[in-house]
């Protein structure tokens, strides 16, 4: 449905607010979705209180993967890291405001998977992070 591509997605895809890379950073993680080649890299800086001071994403891929990364970073800036750890699939769907089939869900959740692997300090991203 074209409404899947509501302005919010196309807008965040074409004019992302948080695209880039923070250097130095406290947290860094990247991963890709082999099915379609989507790639997301996330860098975060924390403040002294365990909050996210700032964040950026970089990568390539479909509009949904890139827009959801931008929306996700937007939503976590100035949030406590402990809260970020609690984010779920539903939070992403709420940010996008749409329903997605299983294939596109993977696109939408790639950034969350990367983010959580980063804040948990894991060596590898696992699908369990986003279930």
């Amino acid at each position, binding site marked *: 449905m*074209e409404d899947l591509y509501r302005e919010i997605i196309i807008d965040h895809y074409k004019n992302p607010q948080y695209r880039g890379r923070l250097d130095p950073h406290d947290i860094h993680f990247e991963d890709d979705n082999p*099915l379609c080649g989507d790639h997301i890299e996330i860098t975060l800086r924390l403040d002294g209180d365990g909050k996210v001071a700032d964040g950026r994403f970089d990568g390539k891929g479909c509009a949904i993967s890139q827009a959801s990364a931008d929306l996700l970073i937007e939503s976590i800036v100035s949030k406590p890291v402990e809260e970020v750890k609690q984010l779920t699939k539903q939070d992403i769907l709420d940010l996008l405001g749409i329903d997605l089939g299983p294939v*596109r869900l993977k696109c939408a959740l790639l950034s969350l998977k990367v983010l959580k692997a980063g804040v948990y300090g894991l060596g590898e991203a696992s699908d369990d992070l986003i279930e």
Partner: protein
Amino acid sequence: MPLDIPRLRQDFPILNREVRPGVPLAYLDSTATAQKPLAVINAMDEFYRRFNANIHRGVHTLAEESTAMYEAARAKVARFINAPSAEQIIFTRNTTEAINLVAYTWARVNLKKGDLVVLTEMEHHSNLVPWHMLSAERGVNLEFVPVMDDGLLDLDIYRALLARTPKLVAFTAMSNVLGTINPVAEIIRLAHEAGAATLVDGAQSVPHLPVDVQALDVDFLAFSAHKMLGPTGIGALYGKRPLLEAMPPFLGGGDMIKTVHLRNFVPNDVPHKFEAGTPAIAEAVGFGAAVDYLETIGMDAVASHEQEIIAYALERLEEIPGVKVFGPPADKKGGVAAFTLDGIHPHDVAQILDGSGIAVRAGHHCAQPLHEKFGIPATTRASFYLYSLREEVDKLVKGIYEVKKIFG
């Protein structure tokens, strides 16, 4: 005589479906799986309502009828590819299992460390991974006939590879991405001259082109019912009889044996030797109905309809700015158009098209190495079959313009 497509479409209930209220389906994904005519659906329905029994060992009427129906289906499939005998058709789950069967039996007996298997860069994962596994397990070497920019195989390099006396040449008759129709007979002839056996992945050729295993002189041919109007859950391996007879069994169990004692068994004759346990009986009946349907239409008519559609599709797609279609020109390919659209990811293209009821596939289509070769992660693929309409091509083109507008 051209096919009467609108009439023929009446045989396929799903083609009347609306994807969402008011949005009719335009099914352009037949390379992934074909839709089923009533003749196939009803044959299976009828089987379960009247004939269902386990086969091959039963004396009662239902068992005899089921057995006869199952074996009649085997004979139909044999006839469809002009196999010399029905016993040379082994029912498998799909093309993938058929190729694995050869890899696990023929190849594990006949190939040893250092032997060479020649594949191509355009293979589907089903004709790559079984050989990766064999290579890792046995130290068999793999080499690949390159795909040129125009989507054709580089036969000069193929000839050079043959000089290294491979034991097997395994290749697809038609690419499921580029649509390339390979010169199967020539590739086989050259392989045989070099002393290699041949396995053809017929997943795309058997559904879409007339195929004659005797004319091709192919050693093994693998294909799937679900891509040729038949049900899921069944496919076939054709093999030359002496090869099949010399091969060890694959899976062990009921039906593939002549006798079993506590500590040993005697394998059954071909093809039963390779069909362990209760087979896909209703599915075989459906498979038989599918080849009956295709034969009634005529494979020449199917192929020429697809020729016409793909020529039209390429013409229309290539006039859209930013669209790049991969593969050779229409006269060298089947009904498959895989393309990219500048700056827009195939997943987005496919999903927006789905909004207009247009079912196309986006991704690497189980041919990731081929996409790597062309330096792209994915393509959008529209594919056609005997029921495809020119108007569906028009819809696709219109849909692509909408995608471009959305991403404006």
